């Protein structure tokens, strides 16, 4: 498994781990000396001996503390960075999959966090620990070091022979656990449909059946997983036992070992084998966390627009030169040249799916053309979309966006004929919009959306004609207002109905990957 972590952190982690293990070894050294005095020499412990023991143990504890804190901080910082990277992939299309985006940030990233926070530091720490302890053992009691070297490969060997199957099985279990969890959460989320279809009993029975089956299968799989832990434990015990046996025999028969070395060996042996065991267990956890990273990476693959491909030095409102746009293989416009004047109403028509919306998105700077240049006269574009999104806000804030005074907002709303109905509301233009509930009619909402754009007096106005129902009076009013506006600004509108063509100065149609000027327009 790859530790996808910058080298500097790996070096830092290794250095800190090495210092920690050294402190522990020095603690063991002094403790063993001290106990040697007590047990063999029958002396009182020397004060400076006690001080050394305390000092090195304190150092060891301090270094462990620092290691944990640094490991967590590095991980959290990297996760923060990763979150920013995911967030930067949000674009105007994300709202169609907003759930999956929010899941990536709130679920998958959180499940990935332990990989960076625990897995990587632990793997580095245990690797360093194993190496240093074996090295130290060569100086303390060579035979024990040899036993360690001899038994240690059994752990990876076991994983190769038996554990791989366990690993696959436990991964299957983890994904099954996810699946069952997902189904349960799905059912909670979709309880309404269960109720509407009257399927409560069936679904409950199914859930129950799934649960039972799940416990059965999981226990079957867990048996393998726990067996592998058990085997690791047996190898550990075998190793520690062998070392203890060897030490015992050395003491009694060969008398080739000091008490100091014997105790020191027995202190370090469990540390060594536990480290091996932890490595084996963590390997499995790491694999699971990485699955979540894959889900996050799916988002990171999306291309990110960071620079604006448009330039704003044109003397025309819009000037396209050899522009092609499309989605992947699907070419919508090919090699189009187009110039639209600084004032006037340009209507665009064409069947759905032919690329009108993509064209508008391109002008907005949201869809990079395959070829060609896009030049506009001004960066301040007003865009009236055919969708509505109201966050929790007030009508005044919605229109002014915090930039215009109340008087200016009221003046514009008056002009659009909205003030009559707005002043009927409890708090007038300060009436809150909560949960997307707007106390207005469709025609009024359209005008509100327009007000939000028009208050900025943009030089270029892009518009997706709203498909809302408008009554005749409202419609006349809007058309009159647009007719007045087009004297100062360029209005480019995707038009769905003939009526609006009346105020159009130019009428273009999309056909055959080209934008064609229609007769009747000037």
């Amino acid at each position, binding site marked *: 498994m790859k530790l996808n972590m910058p080298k500097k952190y790996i070096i830092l982690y290794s250095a800190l781990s090495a210092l920690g293990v050294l402190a522990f070894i020095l603690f063991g050294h002094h403790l063993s000396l001290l106990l040697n005095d007590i047990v063999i020499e029958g002396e009182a412990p020397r004060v400076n001996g006690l001080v050394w023991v305390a000092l090195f143990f304190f150092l060891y*504890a301090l270094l462990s503390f620092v290691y944990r804190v640094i490991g967590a901080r590095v991980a959290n910082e990297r996760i923060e960075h990763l979150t920013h990277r995911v967030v930067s992939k949000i674009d105007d299309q994300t709202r169609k999959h907003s759930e999956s985006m929010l899941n990536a940030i709130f679920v998958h990233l959180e499940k990935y966090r332990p990989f960076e926070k625990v897995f990587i530091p632990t793997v580095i720490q245990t690797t360093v620990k194993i190496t240093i302890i074996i090295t130290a053992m060569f100086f303390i009691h060579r035979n024990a070091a040899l036993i360690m070297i001899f038994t240690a490969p059994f752990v990876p060997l076991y994983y190769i022979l038996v554990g791989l199957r366990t690993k696959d099985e436990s991964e299957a279990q983890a994904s099954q656990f996810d699946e069952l969890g997902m189904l349960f959460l799905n059912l909670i989320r979709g309880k309404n449909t269960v109720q509407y279809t009257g399927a409560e009993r069936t679904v409950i029975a*199914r859930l129950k059946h799934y649960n039972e089956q799940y*416990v059965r299968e999981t226990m079957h799989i867990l048996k393998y997983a726990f067996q592998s832990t058990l085997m690791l434990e047996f190898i550990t015990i075998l190793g520690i036992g062998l070392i203890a046996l060897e030490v015992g025999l050395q003491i009694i028969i060969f008398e080739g070992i000091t008490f100091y070395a014997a105790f020191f060996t027995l202190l370090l042996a469990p540390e060594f084998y536990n480290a091996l065991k932890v490595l084996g267990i963590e390997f499995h956890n790491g694999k699971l966390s990485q699955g979540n990273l894959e889900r996050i990476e799916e988002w990171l693959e999306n291309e990110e627009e960071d620079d604006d491909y448009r330039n704003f030095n044109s003397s025309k409102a819009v000037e396209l030169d050899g522009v092609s746009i499309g989605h992947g293989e699907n070419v919508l416009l090919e090699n189009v040249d187009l110039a639209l004047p600084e004032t006037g109403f340009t209507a665009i028509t064409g069947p759905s799916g032919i690329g009108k919306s993509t064209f508008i998105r391109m002008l907005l700077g949201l869809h990079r053309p395959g070829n060609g240049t896009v030049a506009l006269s001004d960066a301040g574009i007003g865009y009236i979309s055919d969708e509505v999104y109201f966050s929790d806000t007030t009508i005044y804030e919605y229109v002014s966006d915090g930039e215009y005074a109340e008087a200016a907002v009221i003046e514009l709303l008056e002009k659009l004929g909205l003030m009559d109905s707005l002043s009927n509301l409890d708090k007038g233009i300060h009436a809150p919009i909560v949960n997307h509930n707007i106390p207005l009619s469709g025609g009024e909402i359209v005008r509100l959306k327009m007000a939000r754009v028009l208050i900025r007096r943009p030089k270029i106005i892009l518009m997706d004609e709203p498909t809302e129902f408008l009554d005749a009076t409202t419609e006349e009013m809007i058309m009159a207002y647009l007719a007045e506006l087009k004297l100062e600004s360029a209005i480019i509108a995707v038009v769905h109905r003939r009526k609006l063509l009346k105020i159009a100065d130019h009428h273009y149609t999309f056909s055959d990957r080209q934008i064609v000027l229609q007769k009747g327009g000037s």
Partner: protein
Amino acid sequence: MEYLKSERKQILYSILLGLAGGLVGIALFGLSGYMISLSFFDPPFFVIILIIAVIKLFGMMKGAFRYIERLLSHEATFKLIGRLRLNYFKSTISSEQNTHSVKFIQKLNQYFEQVENYYIRIIYPYIVAVLISLLLMVLAVYAGLGFAAMTAIIALILLFAIPKLFEGRMSGTLESRDQTDDALYARLYHYIHDYTNLWVTGKKESEKEKIAPGIRRIRENENRMATNESLMQFMAQGVQLSAIIMIIVMLYEQTPLWVPMIMLIALSYFDLAMPVMNPASQYRTVKAAVSELELDIAHTSIPDMPSEVSAIEVDHLDFRYPNASLDVLKDVSLTVKEGEKHVIIGSSGSGKTTLIDRIIDGDKAVTLYDESGRTVPGASIAQASVMPQQLDFYNASVMDNITMFGHIERNRTAVESDLELLEMAHYTPDTMIEFTGRLSGGEQKRLQFIRMLAENKSWWIMDEPTARLDDRLKQKIWDHILSRPTLIVSTHDLSRLESFDHIHYMEQGRIIESGTYEQLMQRHGPVYQAVQRFRDFL
């Protein structure tokens, strides 16, 4: 804990085994310590061999105990979680709660993970650690009362004082993490949904920067958690150090031979007790989560199949969403009898969806009548097939999704031909829907439509049945819808308006015009205008 009743045996055994395993583990270390001390004083050879044999045996036993204990405790916990899930589902299904937000589901998921932690990582190990501490205290009396007292103090500090000391901080940190998550969620939701506007008005970057503090706060929060956890470990190691010193100082005079043994016992006891501290410090928070899930299900019941519905009456319905200051529906009245086709039109935000939802979910002002004119009790609409705005699909096969896990009888061939009909032949009945979020809006509509075909009920209540579909599919679906005897449909798509018996026009939460197609066309009111406007489409 009440939910554990039926797994009592398993739990008892796993605690006993955990205890035995822990003790054997500690004895293992103690014995090896004693062995070395002893060895240097020329004991009989067989004693040493015996001790080593016992050590190994103990080791094996410890492993085996641990193995069985884990199997038992996991099985008990999984069974418990299964039952908890089932109960939770049963009690949620009839509640009014809106379960559609990602945030709610994420939180629920978290709760269930915490329950698993609660039993596997908090309760069992903690009980085992406490029991082992008690036994060690008793054994410590052999080394003197003072020594026993020290053991007791250490156990108290590790298992009680330190977790208690951090409990407040931990739950504070976890709580503020929760709030941070909620706030960030709202910000992100806004940013995603308002992106186009923010981009166009040049506010994208500044809005994006407003997200950053939330993400930063999550990091700071996680850092605080990590610092707390590490501090706990550090403090425990401080205690461990004093224990090491105390053992040497207290025991070297009387019983020097015991020192290595007790030293190794102490080290292994700390290894066992320290991992318990962190979960124990989160007890309060996790306990809260657990009680969140252990709902009282005594008085939730599933309604029986109600009798056939012959009419639905909406009588002077006013409705306002919780926390909203305005009514979304104002004085709406409408009666639909079996065999009638009703359509509701009007602009977005006029209240169509809310009205459909009220009819489906039930309201005081909505009454259902059976054939004999009696009121159908409860708010159940199970006699109608519905297509609300929010559609639900599950991580299961297409077949299970269509038939609601076998509740609706429909054979595979029929489902296959329905999929074919709606141009979804890239799905088969066996296709697994692995992630419901990946279904597009149009696909959801069509699958729900197939579900309704399978249900084959006489009432169809639908919200925007043809939205997000192309013209050919729209007409195909309209043909099927209009062949149904009884309809309540809200729509923007006026292409088949003339096929309905009754047309209702909504504006600002009121039905402002109702009638047959002919009547309304003559009247030249809002419906007439809407139709003209619709015809004007290019």
